[in-house]
């Protein structure tokens, strides 16, 4: 009994932890707090612990635990998310071991698993890790491709934090490939998302990364600014790790400003704190900064020691770029104390690593440093060669990169300055106006009176004009929106009641399975229609679902006497193209009910949607009796052509709003026999960027 109780309790705990992993407020600090003191006695718990270590940068612990992951049998895991997590962590493990191929193979499986489960967030996570693998391999295009996929899926998922994490990864990618501007842009987007979610932990991380990027670009003011924000956030959730990491950045900024002694006052204790946390990347960074600090304050030996410690941490956490930086620094230290041999050796190491990982930015610093070393050695030819490489790089990149960086990162500053300028100008103007007024008062009161009357008259005329115009445009807008709602295709009530009658007939036949199948399909359809018909646009995958449910219902109604086929270009679904809800429905209904698909043999209706000449082309084809025959049968068909008119009008409205050339064409499928019908609807291509676009707008400025 007690055993059962304990089991139940631990089960509930696990369930809560899993839930937490998929929440928008998820953060590694709280996650590890929740995990402390819990025993890793179930497969789920073991996997969660591994996940925690990877999130918190505990590489040694992670590598140790993750190496045991394969011993956990998949059958022993009864939760899909945990299974997914296990796959991801195994890939992360391969990645850290430099087994990129294995990592990618694993991720391929993780993606297909997540897709099978229809979990967009999981797919996104897998793609995000994919991107990270390519980043480690220094393959820029692939890294970009996969993070963009991850972003697409993140946008589709309900978890917005995942989107932020993807944007962050994208920023990391750009930063590694020296595109600081893009990196900042992406990180600002990520920041906006987590700000909206109130996720303080990530607000802290993202602010800090922007500060780091600013520091790299040499904008100390912005760096300090964002670091302050990050510090504020870390204090709010009192996370030790975040505080310590902020300390490292603070140290870097202080060194750049030339205050090594300030750094020595706090950094050593921060390093001690980090050692407790076992975060290897941060430790490596901290020791590297400490090395720089000692060097700046003239303690050369201590500096070299610190750099060596840093190297071991970076080696263990597999950070070749960072290692190269450290070698470069060590080289510089040796150079400054005229140990030219060691200087050459270390800088060459840095160059080799940077060459290996195809680093294209900092390697030139190393060229320059090496040139200095050779110059000091008196090897003029070599010194000249490396100097030339350095200057070549400068010539090529100085204009583009530096101006980009400056433009981007000082953009906010300049905006503020512009605002300030406008303010002072306004003040000036007002002062001038006042002076004028006083002058006028003094000169002629009568004239003033008249001019005021004229001014007021003029102003009120102008404002009345504008108000009226605005009201008119508002009115127009409202009217067009309203007519859009009115025009929005509604499911024919006739269809709904007929479907209900079919359910009734199933009940009379006493076939509960069929009844239930039909009822479920039909109710899903009604739900989709209720949810989506009031919207101006829906995504194509939802439209596809509506159409397939609708056609399935019709098919069941007519006892499978016709077939249907919906073919939608994957690209459209992937890029989240938009379509007015059920714009095709009247034509499909027409095909079925008036094309008499259910009365002929092999009746089939085909719907395709694809992009054509930058437009969304929807084609509805049926092999029914054809228009002329259907027309002949009922001459006075006024209300069916109403659907046609409504559709034409909807397309017109869309054309006006999106300046497109949408059209509607109806033709015979078989021109000679005059049988079958083909309806072609062309609509302006619209993608669901609105939500994301608003983020972009706010930063593009």
């Amino acid at each position, binding site marked *: 009994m007690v055993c059962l109780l304990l089991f139940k309790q631990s089960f509930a705990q696990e369930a809560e932890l899993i839930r937490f992993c998929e929440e928008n407020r998820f953060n590694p600090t709280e996650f590890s707090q929740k995990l402390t003191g819990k025993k890793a006695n179930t497969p789920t718990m073991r996997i969660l612990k591994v996940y925690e270590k990877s999130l918190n940068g505990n590489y040694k612990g992670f590598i140790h635990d993750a190496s045991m992951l394969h011993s956990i049998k998949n059958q022993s895991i009864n939760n899909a998310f945990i299974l997914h997590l296990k796959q991801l962590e195994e890939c992360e493990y391969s990645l850290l071991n430099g087994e990129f191929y294995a990592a990618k193979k694993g991720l391929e499986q993780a993606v297909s698993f997540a897709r099978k489960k229809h979990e967009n967030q999981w797919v996104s996570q897998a793609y995000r890790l994919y991107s990270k693998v390519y980043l480690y391999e220094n393959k820029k295009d692939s890294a970009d491709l996969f993070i963009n996929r991850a972003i697409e899926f993140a946008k589709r998922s309900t978890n917005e934090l995942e989107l932020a994490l993807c944007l962050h990864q994208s920023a990391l990618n750009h930063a590694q490939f020296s595109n600081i501007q893009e990196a900042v842009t992406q990180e600002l987007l990520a920041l906006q998302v987590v700000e909206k979610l109130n996720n303080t932990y990530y607000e802290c991380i993202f602010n800090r990364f922007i500060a780091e990027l600013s520091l790299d670009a040499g904008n100390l003011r912005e760096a300090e600014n964002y670091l302050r924000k990050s510090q504020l956030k870390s204090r709010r959730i009192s996370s030790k790790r975040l505080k310590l990491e902020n300390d490292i950045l603070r140290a870097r900024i202080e060194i750049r400003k030339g205050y090594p002694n300030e750094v020595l006052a706090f950094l050593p204790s921060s390093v001690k704190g980090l050692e407790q946390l076992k975060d290897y990347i941060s430790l490596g960074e901290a020791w590297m900064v400490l090395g720089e600090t000692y060097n700046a304050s003239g303690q050369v030996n201590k500096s070299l020691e610190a750099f060596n410690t840093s190297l071991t941490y970076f080696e263990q956490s597999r950070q070749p770029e960072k290692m190269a930086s450290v070698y470069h620094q060590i080289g510089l230290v040796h150079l400054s104390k005229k140990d030219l041999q060691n200087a050459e050796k270390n800088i060459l190491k840095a160059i080799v690593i940077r060459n290996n990982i195809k680093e294209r930015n900092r390697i030139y610093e190393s060229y320059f440093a090496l040139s200095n070393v050779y110059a000091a050695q008196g090897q003029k030819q070599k010194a000249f060669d490396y100097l030339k490489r350095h200057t070549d790089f400068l010539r090529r990149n100085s204009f583009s990169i530096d101006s980009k960086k400056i433009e981007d990162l000082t953009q906010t500053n300049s905006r503020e300055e512009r605002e300030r300028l406008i303010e002072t100008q306004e003040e000036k103007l007002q002062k001038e106006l006042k002076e004028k007024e006083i002058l006028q008062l003094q000169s002629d009161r009568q004239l003033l009176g008249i001019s005021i009357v004229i001014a007021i008259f003029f102003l009120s005329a102008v404002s009345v004009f504008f108000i009226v115009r605005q009201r008119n445009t508002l009115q127009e807008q409202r009217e067009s929106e309203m007519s859009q709602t009115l025009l929005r295709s509604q499911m024919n009530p006739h269809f709904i009641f007929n479907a209900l009658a079919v359910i009734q*007939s199933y009940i*009379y036949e006493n076939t509960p399975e069929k009844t239930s199948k039909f009822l479920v399909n039909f109710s899903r359809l009604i739900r989709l229609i209720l949810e989506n018909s009031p919207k101006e646009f829906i995504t194509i995958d939802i439209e596809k679902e509506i159409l397939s449910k609708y056609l399935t219902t019709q098919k069941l109604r007519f006892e499978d006497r016709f077939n249907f086929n919906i073919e939608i270009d994957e690209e459209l679904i992937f890029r989240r193209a938009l379509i007015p809800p059920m714009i095709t429905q009247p034509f499909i209904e027409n095909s079925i009910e008036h094309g008499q698909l259910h009365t002929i043999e092999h009746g089939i209706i085909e719907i395709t949607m694809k992009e054509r000449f930058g437009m969304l082309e929807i084609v509805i084809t049926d092999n029914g009796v054809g228009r002329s025959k*259907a027309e002949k*049968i*009922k001459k006075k068909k006024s209300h069916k052509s109403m659907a046609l008119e409504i559709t034409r009008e909807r397309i017109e409205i869309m054309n006006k709003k999106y300046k497109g050339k949408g059209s509607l064409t109806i033709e015979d499928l078989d021109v000679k026999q005059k049988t079958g019908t083909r309806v072609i609807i062309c609509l302006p291509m619209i993608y669901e960027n609105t939500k994301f676009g608003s983020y972009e707008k706010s930063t593009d400025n």
Partner: protein
Amino acid sequence: MKKVLIIDDEKRIRDFVKRMIDSFNLDVEVFTDGENVETGIESINRIQPDIVFLDIQMPDGTGFDLLNRVKDKKFELIFITAFQEYAIMAIKFSALDYILKPIDDEELKTALQNAIDTVDFKKEDSQFEALTHNLQTNQKRKLVLKTQESVHVVDLSEIIRCEADKNYTFFYLNNGKKILVSRTLKDFETLLSSHGFFRVQQSHLINLEYIERYDKHEGGSVIMRDGSAVPLSPAKKDQFFSMLEKL
């Protein structure tokens, strides 16, 4: 034994209506051979049914199209429809019967029973003509008044007023005729209130066009052009005068 024919484009529905009718244990034989206008006409000519259940919306036309093409309509007609507001109003004006999908077995049974009871009476095309007329217009509709003996088709403008007598309604026409119909005044109120008729009192529905004057005596009454006086309910006074202003 009466012959019943069901015409509907869904086989499933035809079978199910048959099943329902069979469960009533009436003295009828049910045929389910019509699935559209074409085959519907063919089956009517072949089977010569006494009663026809007719779907309105069919792939190759409507039930009304079918009726127009059947020359000798010697059957009782009951429409089956899922949703067709405009048509239902026209059917009601023409005093024809209809049932709604999904189908209530009580309604179906009543409609069928009524049809069986009247099968042996003489059929007149005037009722179907009125239906055709009513389907085409919403303005000057013709109202079919079915009595025990015959079928009257009247223009709305011929009706001066209606008076309730329990479950029956008296129609007073401008040619002095008085017709008794076995339907409630309430039924006619719902049909006629959007066509210039107003219920001035519990048992009186009047055509506003035939009002001569309002008499204040004895609590107030409306004098019609044929000289008849109709009491005006105090509760309806305000509404009545506002209706008059709109004329």
